[in-house]
C-alpha cells in the first residue's frame, strides 16, 4: 500500500480520534467526517475567564477541533499576568483580557472564531448562557463559579419522575489552580454533583478575629490586616481603600511596619502586604497548562464521545512528586441548585410583591432584592432602572395571573443570598404550585402522584 497518496490535512492527528471507531469510547460515539464537521459547525463553547486558565483553554480548544468559541472576562491585563497568561504582551497591559486573548488566538489558528465579552458574568442575560453547548470555567473565585453553576443548573428541567431531561443538561467543565496544585472536574447538572453539591471542597477563607488584630497581634499578617482593616478607616474616614492604588498599599505597608516594630514582630514586607491584602494566590504557567489541557480534553470528549469522560473530579498535586487522583463524588439529592427546585406553595391571590417578600424570609433561600422571570419573561427586575420602571406595576398583581394562570410552573429568581455572614449574588430555580384551584389542581395532583 502506498502512503504517499495521503493528502496533508490540518486535522491529521485529531482525525485519528474522531474518524476511527474505538473500544474505550462513549456509547454515543459515531466516528466519521460528519462528527468532525459537526464539532466545527454546531458546537459552541463559552470559556468563562481569560486569565491563566482562560488563555490556555482558548488555545487548547481552538486546536481541538472547535471553531465557535466565546470568552467572557471583566478584567484588564496587568504586568503580573505575564508570567503565565501567554497570549498577552507587555504592550497589552491595560487592555481587556477577553479582547486581546480572542484576537491572538484567531491570528494564529485560522478558521477559528472567538467572540470576546468584556463584562461581568452577571451582566449577561440567562439566554446568553443557554446558547452554548458546553461552558468551560477558568476562574479563581468561588463566587463566580457558584454563579455560573447556578446559571447552567437553571436550564435543567426534570420530568414527572424527577429524572433530569437530557436535552436540558448544560455540561460544565471547571478548572482551578493554586501553585503546584489544581483540579479539573466535569459537571453534568442533574447527573453528577454540581459546584454547590460539593461546596465543602472550597472552605471559606479564614479571617483573623478582630480582637487578635486589635489587641494581641503575633504575626506579620496580623499587623498588615490591622493597618488595612482598622487603622485605614480610623485615619481616612469615609475614603475607601483601593488595593490597586500603590499609594494606598504603601500606606498600609508603612503602618504595618510601625505596628510590627511596636510589638517586636518580624517579617512585614511590601510583597507580603500585597499578598495578604489582595489575597494573592500564587500561580505558575505549568500548572495552568496541565489543568487547562485536562479541561479541554474533557470538553472534546463530552462534545464528541471519542473517549470515556472524567468521572468526575481530578486533583493534581506536583509539590512532592506527582499525585493525580480521580474521585467520583455523588450529587446531593437535596441540592438547592441542581435539584428539581425549591417547592413553594402559594394562594392564587398572592401578589408578586408579597412573593418577593416571602423569599427573604424563606428558611432555605434568604433571598433579598429578588428579580423574577417566568419562561424568559421578566416579571420584575430590580435593575437596570428602565426595566425596573417597566416591571414595577406587576408588583401589585397576583403572581398566579402573571404566570398565565397555570397551576404550577418554574420561575427563576436572581438576588442576594446571605449565608454565614457572607452576601453574594445568586440564582435560584423555584417550583411554584398554586393551592386550591378548583378541579384543575385536584386532577393535576392525581395525575402527578
Amino acid at each position: 500500500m502506498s502512503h504517499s497518496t495521503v493528502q496533508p490535512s490540518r486535522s491529521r492527528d485529531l482525525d485519528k480520534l474522531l474518524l476511527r471507531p474505538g473500544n474505550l469510547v462513549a456509547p454515543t460515539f459515531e466516528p466519521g467526517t460528519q462528527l468532525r464537521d459537526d464539532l466545527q459547525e454546531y458546537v459552541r463553547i463559552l470559556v468563562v475567564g481569560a486569565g491563566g486558565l482562560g488563555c490556555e483553554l482558548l488555545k487548547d480548544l481552538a486546536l481541538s477541533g472547535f471553531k465557535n468559541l466565546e470568552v467572557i472576562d471583566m478584567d484588564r491585563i496587568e504586568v503580573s499576568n505575564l508570567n503565565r497568561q501567554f497570549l498577552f504582551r507587555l504592550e497589552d497591559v491595560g487592555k481587556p483580557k477577553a479582547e486581546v486573548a480572542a484576537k491572538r488566538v484567531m491570528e494564529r489558528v485560522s478558521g477559528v472564531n472567538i467572540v470576546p465579552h468584556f463584562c461581568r458574568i452577571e451582566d449577561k442575560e440567562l439566554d446568553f448562557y443557554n446558547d452554548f453547548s458546553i461552558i468551560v470555567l477558568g476562574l479563581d473565585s468561588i463566587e463566580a463559579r457558584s454563579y455560573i453553576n447556578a446559571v447552567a443548573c437553571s436550564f435543567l428541567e426534570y420530568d414527572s419522575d424527577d429524572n433530569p431531561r437530557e436535552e436540558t443538561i448544560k455540561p460544565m467543565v471547571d478548572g482551578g489552580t493554586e501553585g503546584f496544585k489544581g483540579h479539573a472536574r466535569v459537571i453534568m447538572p442533574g447527573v453528577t454533583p454540581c459546584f454547590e453539591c460539593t461546596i465543602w471542597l472550597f472552605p471559606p477563607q479564614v479571617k483573623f478575629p478582630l480582637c487578635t488584630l486589635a489587641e494581641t497581634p503575633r504575626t506579620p499578617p496580623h499587623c498588615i490586616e490591622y493597618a488595612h482593616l482598622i487603622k485605614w478607616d480610623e485615619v481616612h474616614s469615609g475614603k475607601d481603600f483601593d488595593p490597586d492604588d500603590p499609594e494606598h498599599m504603601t500606606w498600609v505597608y508603612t503602618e504595618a511596619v510601625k505596628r510590627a516594630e511596636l510589638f517586636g514582630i518580624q517579617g512585614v514586607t511590601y510583597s507580603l502586604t500585597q499578598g495578604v491584602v489582595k489575597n494573592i494566590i500564587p500561580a505558575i504557567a505549568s500548572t495552568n497548562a496541565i489543568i487547562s489541557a485536562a479541561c479541554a480534553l474533557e470538553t472534546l470528549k463530552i462534545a464528541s464521545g471519542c473517549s470515556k469522560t472524567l468521572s468526575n473530579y481530578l486533583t493534581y498535586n506536583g509539590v512532592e512528586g506527582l499525585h493525580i487522583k480521580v474521585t467520583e463524588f455523588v450529587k446531593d439529592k437535596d441540592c438547592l441548585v441542581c435539584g428539581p427546585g425549591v417547592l413553594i406553595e402559594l394562594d392564587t391571590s398572592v401578589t408578586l410583591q408579597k412573593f418577593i417578600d416571602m423569599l427573604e424570609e424563606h428558611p432555605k433561600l434568604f433571598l433579598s432584592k429578588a428579580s423574577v422571570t417566568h419562561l424568559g419573561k421578566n416579571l420584575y427586575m430590580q435593575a437596570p432602572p428602565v426595566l425596573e420602571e417597566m416591571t414595577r406595576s406587576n408588583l401589585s398583581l397576583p403572581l398566579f395571573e402573571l404566570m398565565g394562570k397555570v397551576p404550577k410552573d418554574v420561575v427563576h429568581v436572581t438576588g442576594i443570598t446571605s449565608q454565614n455572614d457572607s452576601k453574594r449574588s445568586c440564582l435560584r430555580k423555584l417550583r411554584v404550585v398554586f393551592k386550591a384551584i378548583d378541579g384543575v389542581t385536584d386532577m393535576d395532583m392525581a395525575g402527578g402522584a
Partner: protein
Amino acid sequence: MAEPKTKYDRQLRIWGEQGQAALEKASICLLNCGPTGSETLKNLVLGGVGSITVIDGSKVEVSDLGNNFMVDESSVGQSKAKCVCAFLQELNDAVKAKFIEEHPEALIETNPSFFSQFTLVVATQLVEDSMVKLDKICREANVKLIFARSYGLTGFVRVSVKEHTVIESKPDHFLDDLRLNNPWPELKSFAETIDLNVADPVAHKHTPYVIILVKMAEEWAKTHGGSLPSTRDEKKQFKELLKAGMVATDEENYKEAIEASFKVFAPRGISLDLQQIISDSCTEVDSNSSQFWVMLAALKEFIVNEGGGEAPLEGSIPDMTSSTELYVNLQKIYQAKAEADYLVIEQRVKNILKKIGRDPDGISKTMIKSFCKNARKLKVCRYRLLEDEFSNPSLPQLQKYLTDEDYSVAMGFYILLRAVDRFTANYNSFPGQFDGEMDEDISRLKTTAVGLLSDLGCNGSPLTEDLINEMCRFGASELHAVAAFIGGVASQEVIKLITRQFVPISGTFIFNGIDHKSQLLAL
C-alpha cells in the same frame, strides 16, 4: 522591559528569588519542537529561564497547524525550529532563544559532546533507541535530562539524573518542630516562669498552648516515672487533665492544647526517611563529595552527639492564641535554639571540609542555615539509567502493577509505548499510523507487546484487547490537549530540578487520557 519583580510576582511567591535566580542561570535544550516540546518550553520561557536552544530538523507541514500553536500558516515549508523559536522569543525578551535546524537523532549519533553545554535537556518524541543513547550521554556529562512523549491519549514523562538532592522540599503539610515530646532546658525554664493557674482570666486564656503542654507534660512525667503518656488510656487521661485546666469554656488556647496534645505523645527522634538518608554510603565523604553530602555528614554527627537523637531545631512556631509578649518571647527561645544548633553544625561542616582537604569556608552560611532549617525534610532522588530499566525492570513491581486494578491500565500503556517503538523498528511505521492497515497492525502490535513482555520475564499477555486496539487507533497522533498536559508536567519537573525546590517525580509518569487515572511507575 517590565520590572521582573512585578512580572514574576506570582511565581516568586512560590520559589522565591533564589529559585528564580537558578532559573535565570539555566540553559535548556529542547529536542523536537512538536506540540509536546513547544508547550514544555513555552511554560519555561514565561517563567524566565536563562536561555533555550530549540533543535528540530523538520519543516513545518500543514498537519502541524492543527496541533501546534507556535506555528501558523506563514510557517509552512520553513524550519520548524526557527518558527517555534521566534514565537517563544516573543513571549519573554529576557530569555535568550536560539535554534538549530538539525535532527536530534543525528546529533545524538554524531556529536554527543554537544549536549554537555546545557543545564538540562528536554527530549521529546524520541524513540527508544535514541532515548537510551542520549541518556548515557547526559549521564556521563552530568546534564539533567527529561523525556516527554505524547501518543494519542497516552504519553509519559521520565526524569533521568544520577542523583538529585533537595534541601527545600517545601512539603504541603509537615508537622511543626515544637519538641513538646522532648523539650530542651531553656524551653523548660521559660515555661517555669509562667503560672498556669494565674488568677487573671485574660492572662489565663492568653497562655500559649506550647507552654501549657510543656508544663502539663512535665507534671505528668513527675508522677509517671519520667515517661510521657503512651497508652490510649493515658492519652485520654492527659487530655482530661488539660480540659480540667480550663477556667472558662471559651478558652481557645486550651482547645488548641487538647488538639495538639498528640505532639506530646509523638515518638522522639528522627523520621524513617531521614534515618535512611543518614545511613547512605555517600555520608562517608571525600574530596569529591557534593556540598549536600558534606552537610549531611555533619548532620549525622550532630544527631548522635549534640542532638541527642534529634535533628537541629527548625526554629519557627505556628501562630497560636497568645498574648503578643508571650508569643514573641517564645519565638525567640525557638530561634535561639535553632541558631545554637546551626552553629554546631557549621563548626562540624568546617571540620569535615578541612579533613577532606577542602576550603573550610567552602559552604556558605546561608546554605548551611537553610540546610539546618530543612533538616527534617531533606530528599534524595536517584534515577536508574534508562537502559537498565528497559532491559532489566524490577520484575516484582512489574507483576504488581499489571495485576493491580489502579495500575494495570498505566502499566499497559507503559508496555505499549515501548512496543510501538519495536513495531516501528520492524515495520517502518507506527501501528495505525496509516489508514487501511488497522487489522493487521493490531495483531502485529499484540505480538510485539507479548514478545516484549516475555523478554522482560513476563509470560502470557495480561494486556487487554481494548487497550491494544486503542493504541492502534491513536496511530502515533500528537493531540494538542495531550501534548499541553504532558508538556505542562515536563516543564514543572524542569522547574523542580533547576530550582532544587520541591520534589521531582520518581519513576515514569504515565498519562492516561481515557479516564485520567494516570500513575507513576517505579521500575
